[in-house]
């Protein structure tokens, strides 16, 4: 990473509470010191359950430091909205990527890795790897 900027993380959920709580959890587990920029984009613009393209675009813009933005999403329409906006081409900052990862575990891995100064590829790899953490 040449410019010293951190990768931004956006957490997209159907629920505003889920998105903000997972963001809080991930930042908390990333430990002391400066963490990577993290923004939740949960629920619809009027506070209901669903996905808001506006909230998502605003969150991505807010965490973009020029090193790329990793987006994690929870279910159906959240994933589809991210994909549709990425296909649009100009809605999200350059270097924005949907990361295929479990929402909570992937968010923690992504924020910890990004906070350590890793680049977007490494952040994505860490989040994806969270799929392999077994619980039995």
């Amino acid at each position, binding site marked *: 990473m040449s410019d010293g900027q951190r990768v931004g993380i956006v957490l997209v959920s159907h629920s505003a509470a889920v998105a903000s709580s997972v963001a809080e959890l991930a930042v908390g587990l990333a430990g002391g010191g400066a963490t990577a920029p993290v923004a939740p984009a949960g629920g619809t613009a009027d506070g209901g359950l669903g996905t808001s393209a506006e909230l998502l675009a605003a969150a991505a813009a807010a965490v973009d430091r020029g090193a790329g933005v990793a987006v994690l999403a929870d279910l159906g329409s959240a994933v589809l909205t991210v994909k*549709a*906006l990425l*296909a649009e081409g100009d809605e999200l900052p350059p270097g924005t990527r949907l990361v295929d990862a479990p929402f909570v575990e992937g968010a923690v891995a992504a924020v910890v890795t990004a906070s350590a100064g890793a680049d977007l590829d490494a952040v994505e790899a860490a989040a994806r790897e969270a799929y392999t953490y077994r619980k039995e």
Partner: protein
Amino acid sequence: MLDADFFRRWMTAAAAAVDREAERLTALDSPIGDADHGSNLQRGFAAVVAALEKEAPATPGAVLQLAGRQLISTVGGASGPLYGTLLRRTGKTLGTDAAEVGEERLREALRAGVAAVATLGGAAPGDKTMLDALVPAVDALGESFAAAADAAERGAEATTPLRARKGRASYLGERSVGHRDPGATSAALLVAALAEAADV
């Protein structure tokens, strides 16, 4: 030839149909979904009509791209990015330069739009989704707009015995059998609105 007015009429007719059928769409979405399909699409198509009035795009491709953009932004459920992608990819395929397009060109563009929906959702015909109405509709469009509307309606009806393999209803497995798919039903409304726009 089909001009920007034709495509505005299509979107206005779709908004009216979604308004008229909102309760039915939400009722279909209650047993196998989250009971918001009707209200989500009402909000989305109302935003489409408002944006078309405000920005008055001049070409068929521009009308559909603006409409698709509005649906992605405002619907809130999975149908937003899916219908938004359908209209936007169709509009992009038409391009924004041509003031009029022929029916054959529209059919090709819609085929590209439907293919983009299938890619985005990872679904295929038979998965109990909007594709079960859209794919036969595009196939029948070579015959006439009315034939496309009939094919979409038959396709939507035929989703009832299917087991859902995509979307929220797929979590229900066998319990999704016996329920008509709300997405295929709204897709049939969209195609019926296209036939309505042509029938002026």
